[in-house]
C-alpha cells in the first residue's frame, strides 16, 4: 500500500565506533576502516568474546553541562547527542518549541542496561522500583523539550526501521509536524557481553579484533558487538520544500514481517524475510532491478549471513550479480538495537558520496552467499535507491527503502 504523503529525512545525528559526525563516519566507512578493538572500558578477560565496536566518549551537546552529562548512562548520552545533533542539522533546534516534534526511538533493553549500570557501581536500583519513575524517551521529551508524542520501540536489530516507519505514519496522519526517529544502544557492558558470548553468538577472534567481523566470509565465526546510535529528523516533503530544507532522502518504503520460528535463530524458510523486502519495495513502487545498493543485515554469523543471501537471491533474481551488496557491520560491529538506524545512515552516505561502502574482511566469500559483493574497498556508484535490511532476534524482519530526492 502506498502512503499519501512523501516524507523526507532532513537532519541526522549519530555516534558510532567510526565517529560522531556525518562526515567523519562517511570518511571512515568509505575508507574501509574498522572500529572494532579490544574491550577497554571494563575487564573482559574472562569473557568468551573480548572485542567490540566501542565509543570512547560520547560528545556532550553544547547545551548540556559536561559534568552532568558525564554522569548519565551511555544510552542516555547517545540519545541526547543524536537527537540534538539531528535537530540542529535540520534547522529545527532553535524552533523546536513552535512545532509538534515527536520521537520514535528504538531502545531494546533500557531497563536491563540501567539496572546493570547502577548495580555494577554498587547501587540497588533494581531493588527499588520507585526509582524507575520515568523512561528515557519521556525524559528526553521533557529535557529537550519537545511537545509531540514519544514512544520506545524494540524489534532487536530491526528497531530503527520500525521507528522510521512509525514516524512516517505519524507524519502522514498529521499527529506531528516533525518527528525524530532512530535508535540507540549502549549494550557493550559486562553482563550483556557475557550474555551474548554465552549464547555463542559472538566472534571469539580476540587476538585480531579488526578482522573479526567478516560478514559473508567463509571464516566468519559470529558477530562483534558494537554501541552507538543514529537519529533522523523526518518531516513532510511539502513542509521541507517550503522552508528549503536540505533533504537527505525520502523514506520511500517500509516492510516488516516475522519468522515465527525461534527467538534467536533465523528461519530456514526465506519466505518471511522475502515478504518484508517485497512489501517495502511495493510500498516504494520500486522494482528490484532499480535498486542501486543493498546494505545487508549480515552480522557475520554462519547461519544468518547464508539465510539472508537466500533472501536476496530470491528477491533480485537475475539481478543478483549486478546489485551491489555490502555489510557495514564489518566495520562498525553489530550495534544491536541501533543497527538498522546506523545502516540507514550508511545508505544516506552512499547516496550523497556516490559510493558504496565495502564489506571489509571479505577475503574468501562463502559460496553459499553468492551475491554482488563489494569486498574490502568502496566502489564508486550512483545510488538513487538504497535498501537496508535488518533482521532481529525475536524473528523480526524489516526492510527500508530510501530514495534520493
Amino acid at each position, binding site marked *: 500500500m502506498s502512503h499519501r504523503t512523501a516524507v523526507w529525512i532532513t537532519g541526522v545525528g549519530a555516534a558510532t565506533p567510526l565517529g560522531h559526525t556525518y562526515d567523519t563516519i562517511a570518511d571512515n566507512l568509505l575508507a574501509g576502516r574498522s572500529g572494532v578493538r579490544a574491550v577497554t572500558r571494563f575487564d573482559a578477560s574472562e569473557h568468551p568474546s573480548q572485542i567490540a565496536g566501542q565509543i570512547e566518549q560520547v560528545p556532550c551537546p553544547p547545551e548540556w553541562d559536561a559534568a552532568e552529562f558525564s554522569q548519565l548512562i551511555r544510552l542516555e548520552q547517545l540519545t541526547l547527542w543524536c537527537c540534538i545533533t539531528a535537530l540542529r542539522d535540520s534547522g529545527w533546534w532553535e524552533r523546536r518549541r513552535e512545532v509538534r516534534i515527536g520521537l520514535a526511538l528504538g531502545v531494546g533493553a*533500557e531497563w536491563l542496561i540501567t539496572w546493570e549500570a547502577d548495580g555494577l557501581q554498587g547501587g540497588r536500583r533494581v531493588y527499588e522500583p520507585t526509582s524507575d519513575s520515568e*523512561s528515557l524517551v519521556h525524559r528526553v*521529551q521533557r529535557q529537550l523539550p519537545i511537545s509531540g508524542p514519544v514512544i*520506545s520501540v524494540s524489534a532487536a536489530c530491526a528497531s530503527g526501521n520500525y521507528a522510521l516507519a512509525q514516524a512516517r505514519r505519524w507524519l502522514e496522519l498529521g499527529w506531528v509536524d516533525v518527528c525524530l526517529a532512530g535508535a540507540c544502544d549502549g549494550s557493550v557492558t559486562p553482563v550483556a557481553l557475557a*550474555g551474548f558470548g554465552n549464547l555463542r553468538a559472538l566472534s571469539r577472534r580476540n587476538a585480531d579484533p579488526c578482522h573479526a567481523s567478516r560478514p559473508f566470509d567463509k571464516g566468519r565465526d559470529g558477530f562483534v558487538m558494537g554501541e552507538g546510535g543514529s537519529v533522523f529528523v523526518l518531516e513532510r516533503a511539502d513542509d521541507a520544500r517550503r522552508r528549503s530544507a536540505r533533504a537527505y532522502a525520502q523514506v520511500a518504503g517500509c516492510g516488516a514481517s*516475522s519468522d515465527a520460528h525461534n527467538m534467536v535463530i533465523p528461519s530456514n524458510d526465506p519466505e518471511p524475510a522475502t515478504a518484508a523486502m517485497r512489501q517495502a519495495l511495493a510500498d516504494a513502487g520500486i522494482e528490484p532491478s532499480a535498486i542501486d545498493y543493498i546494505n545487508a543485515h549480515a552480522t557475520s554469523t554462519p547461519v544468518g549471513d547464508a539465510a539472508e543471501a537466500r533472501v536476496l537471491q530470491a528477491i533480485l533474481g537475475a539481478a543478483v550479480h549486478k546489485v551491489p551488496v555490502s555489510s557495514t557491520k564489518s566495520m562498525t560491529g553489530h550495534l544491536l538495537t541501533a543497527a538498522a538506524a546506523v545502516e540507514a545512515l550508511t545508505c544516506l552516505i552512499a547516496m550523497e558520496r556516490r559510493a558504496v561502502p565495502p564489506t571489509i574482511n571479505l577475503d574468501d566469500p562463502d559460496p553459499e552467499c553468492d551475491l554482488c559483493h563489494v569486498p574490502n574497498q568502496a566502489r564508486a556508484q550512483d545510488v538513487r535507491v538504497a535498501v537496508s535490511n535488518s533482521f532481529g532476534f525475536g524473528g*523480526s524482519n524489516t526492510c527500508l527503502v530510501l530514495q534520493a530526492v
Partner: protein
Amino acid sequence: MKPTLEMAAPPGACAVSVDVAACGTVRVTADMLPALRQQPGGSLPAAFLKHTDDQTVAGLAAVYQAIQRGGLTDTSFTHWGVLAAPRFLGRSATASALHRFAAEGAWGISPHLIPHRSLHAISGTVSQALHIHGPNLGVGGGPNSVTEVLLAATALLDGGQVPGLWVVMTAWDPEPIPTPQGRVAPDSQCGAVALAVVPSRCDWHGLRIRLSPPLPLQPITPLEVPVTELTIFGLQQILAAVLENDTPSATVIWSLGSGGWIEFRRGGDADAPANSQRNGSVARNGSPHPPSSVPVRPRISSNLPESNGAGAENQR
C-alpha cells in the same frame, strides 16, 4: 538556511479508531505462575515457555483467553501483527544476573537473559505461539507503556498493512522487589491485558478505541500538567466499565499528556465517524479539550482536568 514557519497547511490531524474484536485479562499471583507456564491456555510445544519471563507467561495466557472469549479459535493470525508492552520486564532476572555475575563472573550469565528479557521478548514469543508472520514489536517497557503501545498500534493498523493486531500489555502490581536470587513474594500479582484489534467498522457495537492527537500549529507548553499513568490495571477497570455500562455511548477519556487523548467506548455512534479530522482547542496548559464540534457523550470517567467536567476517579 534558517527555517521559516511557513509550513504547508498541514493535514488535519487524523483521529484513528480501532475496534476490539476480543479481549483477555489475566491477574495471577507469583505462586500461580509455574502452573500457568506449563499450560497458558493454548496448544504449545513442551517447554515452550521454559525460559521466558513471568510477564510473557501472563501475556500469552491473556491472548489465549481472548481467543476463547472472542470466538477466534478458528481465526488464522498468519498475517496479523503483534505489539507487546511490558512494564519493567526482567527486573527479577536482572537482579539474579547481577548477583551471579558478582559471584561467578561472565560465565554465570544465562544465555537466555537477553532474548527473553529484551523489550521485544513478549511480542516475539506471541508471534511464535500464534504463527504470526506480520510485524512483531515491543513498545514502551516502562511507565506509560499502555499509552505508548496504543499510539503505536492505532497508527500501524490504520496504515492498512495488517488485517489485525494483537496488543498485549503486561505488568506487576505493585512492582515487586526481587531477591538477589531473582524471586518475588508469592503474593505479588502479575497482570496482562490482550486486545485483538481490527480496523474500525461502522456497524461495530463492541469496544472501540479512538486516539485523537494534538492539534497542529497550536502554541503548546509541554507537560506543565502532570499526567496520570494509564496502567494495565486501570485499563482493565476502564474496559470493564465501558463494556458493562448500559449506556450505549459510555465513554472513558484518557489524556495522553502530549496534547492528545484516547477514548474507550462502544462503537456504533453515528455522530463519530471511525477515522476523521477534527477541530478543537488546546488549553494553554497543554491539556486538550474535547472538540466542541463533537456532541458531549456521557462519560464514565476521565483523567482530564476538572475544568473539562471530568471525574477524578483516575487521579492518583
